[in-house]
């Protein structure tokens, strides 16, 4: 169990949790959504700037939450900037499966580096109560880019 804890709270997650990247409110965001975890009261807002050809030109977030949800939001924004919306959707699907401990099969070559990075968060699969923390930012970004009002990870 303590190994699982150490795997979950590894250095890179603690770093992203303490010093989140893209923690800001971009003025030129084209869409945003609020995500909340009604069980615990954690809230975050994800901002995305989608340009021509569905390119994600910028992604950022604000809010408060646990180390896992903040680290996940931080890493997610880093990863999706420069991707297309459809690629972000695909990554969300893979990431969600990783967190649930499901088989993700052979991931597309183009995502290899991203999936390596996201792998550090897959330790949540040992903690079913925390899966929603890891996926909250992704659900929220999904709601933002697809024009849904708000999101919960419930």
């Amino acid at each position: 169990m303590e190994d699982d804890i150490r795997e979950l709270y590894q250095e890179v997650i603690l770093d992203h949790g303490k010093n989140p990247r893209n923690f800001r409110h971009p003025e030129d965001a084209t869409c945003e959504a609020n995500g909340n975890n009604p069980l615990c009261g954690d809230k975050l807002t994800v901002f995305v700037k989608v340009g021509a050809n569905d390119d994600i030109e910028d992604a950022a977030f604000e809010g408060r939450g646990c180390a896992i949800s903040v680290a996940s939001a931080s890493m997610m924004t880093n990863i999706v900037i420069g991707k297309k919306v459809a690629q972000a959707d695909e990554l969300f699907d893979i990431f969600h499966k990783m967190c649930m401990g499901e088989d993700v099969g052979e991931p597309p070559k183009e995502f290899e580096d991203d999936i390596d990075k996201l792998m550090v968060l897959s330790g949540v699969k040992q903690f079913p109560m925390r899966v929603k923390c890891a996926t909250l930012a992704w659900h929220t970004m999904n709601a933002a880019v697809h024009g849904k009002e708000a999101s919960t990870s419930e």
Partner: protein
Amino acid sequence: MMTGANLSRKEEPDFRYDVSAIRADFPALSLEINGHPLAFLDSGASAQKPVHVLERMDRAYRSEYANVHRGAYTLSQLATESYENARATVASFMNAKTPDEIIFTRNVTEAINLVAYSYGRKFLSAGDEIIISHMEHHANIVPWQLLRDAIGIVIKIAPIDDAGNFLMDEFKKLIGSRTKLIAITQISNVLGTIVPIKEIVNLAHEAGAHVLIDGAQGICHHGVDVQDLDAEFYVFTGHKLYGPTGIGVLWGKLDLLNEMPPYQGGGDMIENVTFEKSTYREAPARFEAGTPPIVEAIGLAAAIDYVSSIGLANIAAHENSVLAYATNKLSQVKGLKIIGQADRKAGIISFELKGAHPHDIGTIVDSKGVAIRAGHHCAQPLMERYGVAATARASLGMYSNSDDIDQLVDALNYVKEIFD
């Protein structure tokens, strides 16, 4: 109770109180969680159950079970007797005038919704005011908001200070000619604040207002004498009082209950039904439509018998000494801030730990066998008051001891090790 077996540890509170003998009555307390002995510090959410309750419910299902108030046969009569005896046990525990004042509900939430719906629509109208406090559980906020949306009452909020003390002078200013009801907690589930409910009842009555006390936390840390308190309603739930889930209690003054319309319609609550019109029985039957939680009521009575055999005052004294021990120990953890330091407190300690979110704390201490609550504790307006989204909370029960606290402190140091 005293065996002397546990006297060697000088921190152990109250020498007349044999906490190790009590712990032995609770099977769950000997569980091992993630390779560590369980330190269960979430009794404020729901308490563990003594073997007396488990065995009593088992026996009820095995040898005295049938539906109540219906059958002409022996087994139904046995079940009905046990169920009604449970009502009498609850009545005597609260010092109610008669068991007829005891209405079994599913939990506190249902009890408050019952009052808001039935009493609210009968006795309140647009512009009438009710007062709740800033530290209410959602169960004592949302039902009143539903009523407000339905009939246009006004909800006023009695403030607290930063330590979590109820501000009596501010409360007095809120009472006016339109004040009809004060609905307030006996003990805050987040801050542990003990609210001066007797004084509140007196003030309310001077103004001609009624009072509902949410005893969810109060019943197990303090108990209640409803005749002495003289409020109109008092509600509590079984599962925090070491009884089963699915059983709560609404106590109300009998005359008032009998003036209130039914909350739910169905079997067992009627005198006579035709397709044109139905007439209703008096309390408590009026408010217990359908098959009630029979065995849960019997289990609750067993829990009350168990608690009474030890004595609520003894339990409170024990919890107070563990609370003092815990407050002292936790205050020494660097970066830890206790939220809720009211002058009068029960065994509930909410806290923040610098640099660690409550959820992370909850997950990490669990790996050391420590069960605490992390979250908003169904009290979001109160979280807002303190500018936090969530807190970690350790809450005590009759079986809590200094070992639990030491294990918590060690686990918190492990959290700090990870985050520092």
